[in-house]
């Protein structure tokens, strides 16, 4: 929805769309909220603009957005104008909803939301029309432009903590998503609020006058500028997503989706009880790789893991055979490798739940992430350095995210938690090594059993059955057996495709390997897995 992405047609299949970009955040380590943080982050966005792209129209960007903490005072004042009162922060959640322009469907969508909120035992306080000015944006983006509304939900006091409330909001949202695909929640949280769309960096503030309002404050802000491989505007695929913003690509996506789906039947969570079935499927298909990654993160966080813990499962470091990694960390990764497979590919992933904010990098460090800590307590991180002018004398230190490493700022604790402390804490939270020792069995430790004897009399016949040729023996297999390497040839191939061959090609030959033309990595890696 809110997308002109065409369906599969001709030889085109939207599942092969890619995107990439520039990403950044600004945070006050001590959690002091200010309008300055928002101003600064929008400046970062403008200075990352060249990493994004524009479509066939000069005024249609590929998408830009910003994630903030809920700007309570601002919203309170705005809601007051609308004659409803917001309770203190933490006691309400805000949904940033994209609704269809057509008033009939729009009303219908609102009713669905209202019903879902009521069903979950929460109170809907009111709706606010988010002001927008679409004068700067291009025609193609306008053609699929949604109406933005904010919906305010009061937390029922029986929900003891904000986390409980976040889970309830998640449940409400998932139920709505399952009922209709006509609307989209940019965000729906008691902690964070997202403004995003088919915009370029300098359009965002004009399009959303809220962002220019000096009463808006936040202690952290994430910004993102997108570059996609098409010109079909898609409002919902702009970043940030609810927990992550991504620069990079997930190359194993299809497998990850399948495995997640396969796993769902085993899902049980004391935190959700019977409601768990309403959360499935976890992955909303048809999103971008980043959107689907966000779905997975969200599920892991909502069912009780911390955000960094979820990230360590989805984007683990290269632990197998690592020369210097601590055993506790190896045990953590090995244990979790029994739970799920990595989402693999080049990635710089910014993560935040509105309290902690940070970033993690893929195991090979294939995307840039530079940060700067200032003496007056800010951290600025982005795909590039120099996106914000900071006087040199105010710089405490400058760093970069390293392969597989995470970097986190906890605004509640008011400090930076570095990779080793963070992972040490997570890795020692449970006796993972002991669990592995007690449960994980090595094949080599299992008792042996008799094996069938080779039957030379029938080898030829069986080779015939399976379509062996002399070439298989001489050209393919002999060099492998001799040198431990696949044979090399040259001058390409000019034989028929399997489907055009009359010589009973093997079934395998009907398939061609795909390869990543812009995101592959080298083979000569360190001794990692």
């Amino acid at each position, binding site marked *: 929805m809110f997308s002109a992405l065409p369906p599969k*047609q*001709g*030889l*085109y299949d939207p599942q*092969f769309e*890619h995107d990439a970009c*520039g990403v950044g955040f600004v945070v006050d380590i001590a959690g002091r909220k200010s309008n300055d943080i928002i101003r600064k982050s929008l400046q970062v966005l403008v200075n990352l*603009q060249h990493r994004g*792209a524009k479509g*066939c129209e000069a005024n249609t960007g590929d998408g830009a957005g910003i994630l903030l903490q809920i700007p309570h005072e601002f919203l309170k004042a705005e809601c007051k104008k609308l004659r409803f009162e917001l309770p203190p922060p933490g006691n309400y959640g805000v949904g940033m909803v994209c609704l269809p322009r057509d008033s009939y469907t729009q009303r219908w969508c609102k009713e669905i939301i209202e019903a879902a909120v009521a069903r979950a035992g929460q109170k809907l306080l009111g709706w606010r029309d988010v002001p927008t000015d679409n004068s700067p944006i291009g025609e193609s983006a306008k053609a699929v432009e949604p109406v933005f509304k904010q919906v305010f939900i009061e937390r029922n006091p029986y929900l003891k903590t904000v986390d409980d409330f976040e889970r309830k909001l998640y449940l409400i949202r998932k139920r709505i998503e399952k009922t209709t695909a006509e609307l989209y929640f940019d965000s729906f949280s008691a902690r964070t609020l997202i403004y995003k769309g088919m915009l370029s960096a300098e359009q965002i503030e004009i399009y959303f006058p809220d962002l220019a309002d000096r009463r808006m404050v936040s202690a952290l802000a994430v910004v993102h500028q997108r570059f996609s491989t098409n010109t079909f505007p898609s409002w919902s695929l702009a970043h940030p997503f609810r927990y992550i913003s991504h620069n990079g690509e997930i*190359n194993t996506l299809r497998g990850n989706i399948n*495995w997640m789906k396969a796993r769902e039947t*085993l899902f049980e969570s004391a935190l959700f009880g019977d409601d768990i079935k309403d959360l499935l499927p976890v992955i909303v298909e048809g999103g971008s790789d980043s959107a689907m990654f966000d779905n997975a993160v969200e599920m892991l966080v909502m069912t009780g893991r911390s955000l960094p813990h979820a990230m360590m499962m989805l984007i683990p470091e290269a632990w197998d055979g690592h020369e210097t990694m601590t055993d506790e960390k190896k045990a953590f990764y*090995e244990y979790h490798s029994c*739970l799920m*497979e990595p989402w*693999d590919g080049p990635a710089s992933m910014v993560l935040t739940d509105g309290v902690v904010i940070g970033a993690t990098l893929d*195991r*090979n*460090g294939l995307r840039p992430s530079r940060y700067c800590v200032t003496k007056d307590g800010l951290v600025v991180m982005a795909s*590039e350095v*120099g996106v914000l002018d900071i006087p*040199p004398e105010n710089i405490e230190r*400058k*760093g970069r995210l*390293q*392969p597989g490493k995470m970097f986190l700022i906890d605004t509640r604790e008011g400090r930076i938690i570095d990779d080793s402390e963070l992972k040490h804490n997570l890795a020692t939270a449970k006796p993972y090594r002991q669990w592995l020792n007690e449960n994980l*069995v090595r094949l080599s430790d299992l008792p042996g059993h008799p094996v*069938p004897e*080779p039957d*030379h009399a029938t080898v030829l*016949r069986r*080779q*015939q*059955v399976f379509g*062996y040729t002399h070439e*298989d*023996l001489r050209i393919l297999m002999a060099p*492998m*057996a001799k*040198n*431990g*390497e696949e044979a090399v*040839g*040259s*001058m*390409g191939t000019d034989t028929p495709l*399997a*489907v055009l061959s009359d010589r009973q090609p*093997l079934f*395998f*030959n009907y*398939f*061609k*390997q795909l390869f990543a*033309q812009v*995101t*592959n990595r080298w*083979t000569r890696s360190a001794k*990692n897995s």
Partner: protein
Amino acid sequence: MSTALGPERNLLQPKPESCRMIKILSPIIDNDDLAKLRNISLAGFRSVTLPMRFKTSEGGEGMRSALKDLFETAGAAIRSGATIVILSDRQVDNDYAPIPSLLATSGLHHHLVREGLRTKATLIVETGDAREVHHYCLLIGYGASAINPYLAFETLDDMIRQGLLTGIDHRKAVNHYTKAVKKGVLKVMSKMGISTLQSYRGAQIFEAIGLDQKFVDTYFTNTPSRIGGVGLDEIAAETIERHRRAFPSRPMRLPDLDWGGHYQWRQDGEYHMYNPETIHKLQYSTRTSNYKVFKEYSELINSASARLCTLRGLMELKFADNPVPIEEVEPVESIMKRFATGAMSFGSISKEAHETLAIAMNRIGGRSNTGEGGEDPARYIPDPNGDSRCSAIKQVASARFGVTSQYLVSANELQIKMAQGAKPGEGGQLPGHKVDEVIARVRYATPGVGLISPPPHHDIYSIEDLAQLIYDLKNSNPRARISVKLVAEVGVGTIAAGVAKAHSDVVLISGDSGGTGASPLTSIKHAGIPWELGLAETHQVLVQNNLRSRIIVQTDGQLKTGRDVVIAALLGAEEYGFATSALIVSGCIMMRVCHLNTCPVGVATQDPVLREKFTGKPEHVVNYFRMIAEEVREFMAKIGFRTIDEMVGRRDKLDTRKAIDHWKATKLDLSPMLEMPEVPAHVHVRRVHQQDHGLDKALDNLLLELAKDALEYKKPVEMQLPIRNANRTVGTILGSEVTRRYGAEGLPDDSINIRFTGSAGQSFGAFLPKGISLMLEGDANDYFGKGLSGGKLVVFPPTAATFKAEENIIVGNVVLYGATSGEAFIRGVAGERFAVRNSGAIAVVEGIGDHGCEYMTGGRVIVLGRTGRNFAAGMSGGIAYIVDQDGDFAERCNLEMVDLESLEDAQEEQFVRDLIARHMRLTNSARAQHMLDDWAQYREKLVKIMPLDYRRVLAEKKVQAAKTYVMVHHG
């Protein structure tokens, strides 16, 4: 490649027993390991073996119901507690044939996903059909955790008995074979950017060609299959046919194995389009300029094509009722300007062959391609007879061999090779015996030392990185057009759209079948798809996105005749590339031994004796292209086109073959290839606009103005300017101007001296030539000094900064990638992949991230602080010096190709010390100062990283020099 087998538990509530699994070290398991798993009696595990076979007498129906039974039985077994499902085709006999293991595995995998049972059990495949790397990739990619290729193992044993494999025992043969498979699978994974087997399993990163959509939806859910094709019945029929051969109905002696003939032409083997007859006719006709024989050649090829070798063979041209008079059709001369020859490096083919193609293409106004091996500057000067041996297209590939400022400036097209048809997604290797003096000079390498092209461009891991390289190259030569070469696969159109948005002027869609380079057999046969599909998709997606108007589309991949060109045009290409055919015209006889250096006709060899046998002439190549163009004209007249421009993308003039009388091909549906998106009339379907590269906004325009005196009168100039991250590729246009005027020599050192303050954008000082010095007070982003070509770069923190420079990052990732000469002094820490593919620059830096000096072949790198992991991987030349402060550097160094030594002598020590002293003077480095003050202590900590190959060659040279000395003085 270890992985764990067994059932998964609830992901959301982890328990100790969540890791109750069996760890295996390799996905290829031998018979012993399989027996262990089959007979397992361990709490939490139970295995079941299910047969993959069907009754041949029941045909396709039998296979269908056998699969259904298999799925149901497996489901029931898992429901009742089985955690390991072994699929086996050992039980085949006179009545039963094996179900193809891939079909059974993937079908079951998807069935179990749908049933919600998949994670409760592991799939293991015991099969007789897996033998090639591709087979294992498919089985894993569609869900298998482990594979036991019992028949492959038995075959090895049998080969030893028959004397086909000698000097090796069975156990060793099996080990080697398994190792080769694992390496191959890893390579395929890495082509997709995947690093763990666990993530590759079930990722189904394949495209089916020629399989029925419904069939794919059932057994290979979500796998693209775009032109339909055969289904279960035909697959069963083929299986039964193989079975019939093995179990003949009348008792007779079992026939010997088929030859195969996929890799090399055989009279009784698989059909090849280029066979002795077609090769002869092509060579004869082009040598004698005999159009009649040429027509015989194209008749043979076109009819072979129609006889089901190619997709284009299945298409028909729609001729007009009233043809255009041939005189009115665009002349041969203008058509030939659209022709290019393929990228074949000097190194893979001989000097003679390479220059023949260049001269021929320059004569006809087409374009020849350097390939990725650089180009001898001698070729930039025209020959006395007016011929030019300068290749119009200069390729920029992952290794960046010989990519100097001069190389770039002398191109009229710069082609970024993202992939190559023969081995998409892979790098290459030029063995040491092919690296002679000349090749080494052109590639900035050491003679006799093998050269590795890394698989990826280290400066491209994402589409915006590609956009940056396009911008860099445009800056390096604003007059050249930029082209990006992609290989056809599903989704290539989408990438092409990204390429168009990244402001490339040309996109080349290469087919899978081309490629002259040496590649693993798996890649040659199983990666990539025919250009017809890739081109058709690209044109559709570009038009749909209204991007077609700003980019030229070129295609290549075994184009052989005028008809091929016409079909390429109708499917949407404006320009056409030829490689194999051009080589054949130059004398190649398809011996397919390019990788062995034994080419008997002097085309693909560096052996001076064999090169003598080269008989190709530019005239032959010119004749070939004239005749192709003439043929194109004849078709144009018949279809009713006067110009190629009119013809581009006119799919309505193509018809899918009305009368395909082939039992399998009739199932194909080529109409998706001919579909055109509905777009408004103003959307163009060929290139009509130039890309806006945005060079007018570059900071370099100002630099050019300020450096006027130096450029015009060689008068030294100095300037000071602020800079920020949005100023990208600073210094590169300026550098191109210096090189254009003063060639490889450049200007005297420091002629243009610019001091910047601030944070520099990406690619600061890219391809900077000699004579320009850039001093940066501040910091810089990725690709600092990319392709440095003689210039000098200095960077240091602002004077007002209080942080310790040596502990803080100052420049980004991929610094000095592909540098060929020049110097860089960096006061601070650099990111990942420092000086990768450096072949001549000198650098001093105070700390670096992972993968430093990877694939380096020349130059000197001094690191005054800590390095990351995997230092010196694949490094075959140049020398690095590391200050090993904590004595643990060896742990982080990849010792496969290098040795750690201490400094050789006082001369070497002086060299290092002088450089550190210069670093201190230029950057005011506290770290350098400290080291120099306490030199006695630090010299002990210096570790020298010496490539083994490089040392050997240097030693040989020394001996050689000594001998010469002796001869001179005693002779």
